[in-house]
């Protein structure tokens, strides 16, 4: 049963999920459970003149109503946990309920607790709030204007921070043989994990301990932050997040709502639950992207790229969310040079306050935005030179023999074989053939196009020293405990907190593989701060490269101790004991092979009747693994599209993805991650986008107005992997959760722009709606 690493294994988490036995937060039922509902500001910017809660309190089912003033001294503000260095950041804390001013539509104003959910919602309508509406600002560029209203009085020009990296002078661009400039708009996206956010809190006054079920990607970070906000020692808080219905970054942040639920349970002495409606999810749960990017690219006439420069105006929303400032700076900025040999790069980032929902990580966080501008620029550069875009990429890709590679922005890319992935993808899509067919089809009046992205991403977030250097207010190592039971079965406690990525299976594969035991003998425990000492959660594709390696090290520590015991049992010394496929064996001088199964050795460890001297009973391995570097997955994606001349409708004809995430533990799960990522990335390219009006009202606030991708929007994706092991970790793994989202957005837009070439179209802002595409053809058609 060993050797399961690299094999397709059905998921261990599925039986409970397909039979309706999962435990998502809203499924938690407790005795005397009260329900909370939150009154939210209907205005983007307003002063609160008065709040009258008397009518709500008269409602027979209402237990309590809290306003900002009621809790001011009791519930601390929600902090920002990522403060990029050297950026004079205005880390304006977010009050859990607005005090005298609301700053975005959805900002919490009051909370009702009632004994019935319907009653709690009824009572919201009985609260009378007097507002004085103020002018709002929603666009980050407009917000930087002298005349713009200020979101926070201590942030002039609404600038929350200014951050820079790298070096490239004006002269490098002005004097370059080829210089391309362009502005890209990364529209705002709404993550829309299918499970709405929710929390349930229960307080035990006699022990002073608070138990909370929370929809979170990082329970320990929530415990840490809630400890500060609620003034409870960390060890008195238990956070549970067993089944979480997707996160995509939006469940990293600590929100006012969770703090309020915790506070209400402590204050009222009864358990309290709050679950957001989808409408609230649209308004309040963090959004992603939203950047205006001015880019310069310099190169030679032969297609060599030399320098890149980006000015990023990033819309942070009304408050700096938990990891918000890290996204447009560190996660975006450092990867701007991508997979190419740039000699110079410079990134200038302005984080800007507006009267909109705070932005934070959304699948890929920063890296999709960087890859998008780079891959679009490479195509514009190729267009300028009338070179084939694939040729430009081939010419500039970092060579397989150049790793570790030091990028112009100071990163050390661990390993790669970018050409191999490119060649494989070219073969799969049949690039040359398509180019010939394209000519033919164009002459028939059919507008087909092909687009490509060659990318590298930075993931496996750690190492802790780097986290500190870039201003993340936490470590980024990961913990693992491997507890072997007397029966030889194993429970693993991991600080990573997967929520759909299948780590209950891949982690069991790692253990099964190393110990030579069936994966059914391995149970993975995650998402419970009482059972797991510490951990940093799941985001940034860190779970397998960091948490998985922590696990492998802990398993090896188990084996090391077991080997000592086995040697004693087999009457030899440790050095003479081999371990393979679950069997310890020895070849002694007398020629006799002696062996003991893993289970036999484990039993001895617990019986402890005859242990070698100095060896304690029991068998557990622990690891707190801090990686030495990030990991850098890479790959090439291709897409073929056809644009309908009459309607502007885009049809995706084929989509090919070749990704390299180092060694693949479970191809089925890795492929599933790629599929989901591609769908989300194409969602941004073609359909999705959050739109605010000038007053800061979210116009795309339901699934009726925000175009979520459906099954029939897509063709079948053709996926493949190349495997270039990560050289700096035990398992040789990188990360796969974000590659699809990072690569697919520019791939699709490149394909559409390629299809629109006959109309002289150079670029279109996302999403590429049929109307926009049709207009471009009309306009381009005229001028051509």
């Amino acid at each position, binding site marked *: 049963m060993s050797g399961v690493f690299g094999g397709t294994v*059905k*998921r261990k*988490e*599925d*039986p409970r*999920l*397909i*039979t*309706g*036995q*999962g435990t*998502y937060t*809203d*499924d938690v*039922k407790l005795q005397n459970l009260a329900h909370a509902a939150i009154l939210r500001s209907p205005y983007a910017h307003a002063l609160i003149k008065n709040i009258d809660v008397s009518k709500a309190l008269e*409602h027979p*089912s209402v237990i309590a109503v809290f306003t900002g003033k009621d809790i001011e001294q009791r519930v601390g503000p929600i902090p920002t946990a990522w403060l990029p260095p050297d950026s004079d950041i205005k880390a304006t804390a977010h009050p859990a309920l607005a005090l005298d001013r609301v700053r975005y539509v959805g900002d919490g104003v009051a909370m009702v607790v009632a004994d019935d*959910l*319907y*009653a709690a919602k*009824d009572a919201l309508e009985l609260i009378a709030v007097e507002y004085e509406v103020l002018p709002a600002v929603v666009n980050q560029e407009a917000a930087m204007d002298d005349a713009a209203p200020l979101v926070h009085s201590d942030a002039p020009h609404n600038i929350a921070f200014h951050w820079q990296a790298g070096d490239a002078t004006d002269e490098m661009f002005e004097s370059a043989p080829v210089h391309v400039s362009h502005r890209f708009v990364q529209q705002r996206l709404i993550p*829309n*994990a*299918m*499970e*709405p956010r929710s929390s349930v809190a229960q307080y035990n006054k006699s022990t002073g301990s608070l138990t909370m079920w929370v929809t979170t990607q990082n329970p320990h970070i929530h415990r840490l932050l809630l400890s500060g906000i609620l003034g409870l020692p960390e060890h008195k808080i238990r956070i549970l997040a067993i*089944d*979480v*219905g*997707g996160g*995509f970054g939006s469940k990293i942040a600590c929100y006012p709502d969770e703090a309020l639920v915790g506070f209400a349970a402590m204050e009222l002495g009864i358990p309290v639950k709050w*679950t957001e*409606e*989808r*409408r609230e999810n649209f308004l309040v749960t963090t959004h992603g992207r939203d950047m205006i990017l001015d880019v310069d690219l310099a190169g030679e006439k032969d297609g060599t790229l030399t320098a890149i420069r980006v000015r990023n105006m990033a819309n942070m929303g009304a408050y700096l969310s938990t990891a918000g400032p890290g996204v447009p700076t560190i996660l975006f900025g450092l990867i701007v040079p991508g997979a190419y040999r740039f000699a110079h790069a410079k990134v200038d980032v302005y984080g800007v306050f507006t009267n909109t929902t705070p932005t934070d990580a959304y699948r890929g966080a920063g890296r999709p935005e960087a890859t998008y501008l780079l891959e679009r620029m490479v195509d514009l550069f190729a267009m300028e030179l009338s070179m084939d875009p694939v040729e430009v990429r081939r010419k500039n890709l970092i060579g397989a023999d150049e790793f570790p590679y030091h990028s112009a922005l100071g990163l050390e890319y661990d390993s790669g074989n970018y050409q191999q992935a490119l060649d494989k993808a070219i073969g799969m899509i049949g690039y040359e053939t398509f180019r010939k067919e394209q000519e033919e089809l164009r002459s028939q009046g059919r507008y087909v196009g092909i687009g490509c992205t060659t990318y590298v991403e930075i993931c496996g977030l750690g190492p802790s020293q780097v986290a500190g250097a870039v201003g993340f207010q936490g470590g980024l190592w990961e913990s693992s405990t491997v507890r072997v039971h007397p029966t030889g079965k194993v429970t693993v406690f991991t600080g990573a907190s997967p*929520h*759909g*990525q*299948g780590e209950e299976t891949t982690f069991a594969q790692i253990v099964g593989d190393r110990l030579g035991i069936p994966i059914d003998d391995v149970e993975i425990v995650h998402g419970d701060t009482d059972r797991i000492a510490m951990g940093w959660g799941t985001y940034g594709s860190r779970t397998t490269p960091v948490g998985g390696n922590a696990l492998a090290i802990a398993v090896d520590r188990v084996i090391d101790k077991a080997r000592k015991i086995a040697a004693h049992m087999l009457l030899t010394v440790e050095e003479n004991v081999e371990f393979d496929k679950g069997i310890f064996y020895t070849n002694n001088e007398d020629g006799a092979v002696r062996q003991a199964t893993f289970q036999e050795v484990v039993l001895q460890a617990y019986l402890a009747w005859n242990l070698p001297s100095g060896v304690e009973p029991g068998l557990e391995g622990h690891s707190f693994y801090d990686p030495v570097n990030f990991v850098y997955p890479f790959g090439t994606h291709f897409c073929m599209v056809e644009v309908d001349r009459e309607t502007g409708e885009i049809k995706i004809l084929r989509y090919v993805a070749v990704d390299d995430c180092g060694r693949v533990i479970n191809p*089925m*799960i890795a492929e*599933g*991650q790629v*599929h*989901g*990522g*591609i*769908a*989300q990335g194409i969602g941004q390219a073609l359909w999705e986008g959050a739109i605010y009006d000038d007053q800061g009202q979210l116009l795309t606030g*339901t*699934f*009726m107005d925000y175009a*979520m991708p*459906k*099954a*029939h929007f*897509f063709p*079948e*994706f053709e996926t493949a992997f190349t495997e270039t092991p990560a050289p700096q970790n035990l398992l040789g793994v990188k990360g796969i959760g974000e590659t*699809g989202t990072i690569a697919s957005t520019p791939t699709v837009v490149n394909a559409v722009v390629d299809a629109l070439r006959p109309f002289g179209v150079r670029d279109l802002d996302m999403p590429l709606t049929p109307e926009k595409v049709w207009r471009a053809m009309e306009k381009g058609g005229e001028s051509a």
Partner: protein
Amino acid sequence: MAITNTSVEITINGMLHSLDVEPRLLLVHLLREKLGLCGTHVGCDTSQCGACTVLLDGQAVKSCTVLAVQTDKQTITTVEGLGTIDHLHPVQEGFWEKHGLQCGFCTPGVMMAAVGILEQNPHPTEEEIRHGLEGVICRCTGYQNIVRAVQYAANLTESSAVESEVAASNIHREAYEGR
């Protein structure tokens, strides 16, 4: 707040329930809050996501758009009544085999919708499955493996019809895979 309750009799997963419900109570809340059948999920308030899909007299419906009182004298099947771990419904088996789920939140509803699709069209093409899934949103899977899961279930059901005397579903699977 004098709201008079209404008595209803509903058969849920084969069990007859006599209940007193508020007239405005949604079926999904009856299932989740009053009966503890939390396998049916709520993903939206606008009848768009399909996470709450259940079978009402054999037809897939979104239980967030149905009032509990409307289901008087009717039959409801939720994911808890679809199959058990020892006896999975072909659709459940398809989702497990083909990795049709990731976070699993949309899954009960998507599986119920799939049952509905196969009910109407036991041999759907890929295209037909994709269109049949119009009413559901999955943010995790990119749908490809959901489509495969439904195809798998269709094939499984077909082979079980052919060999109707063979009952155990694991034998069906072998028959299917052996093709």
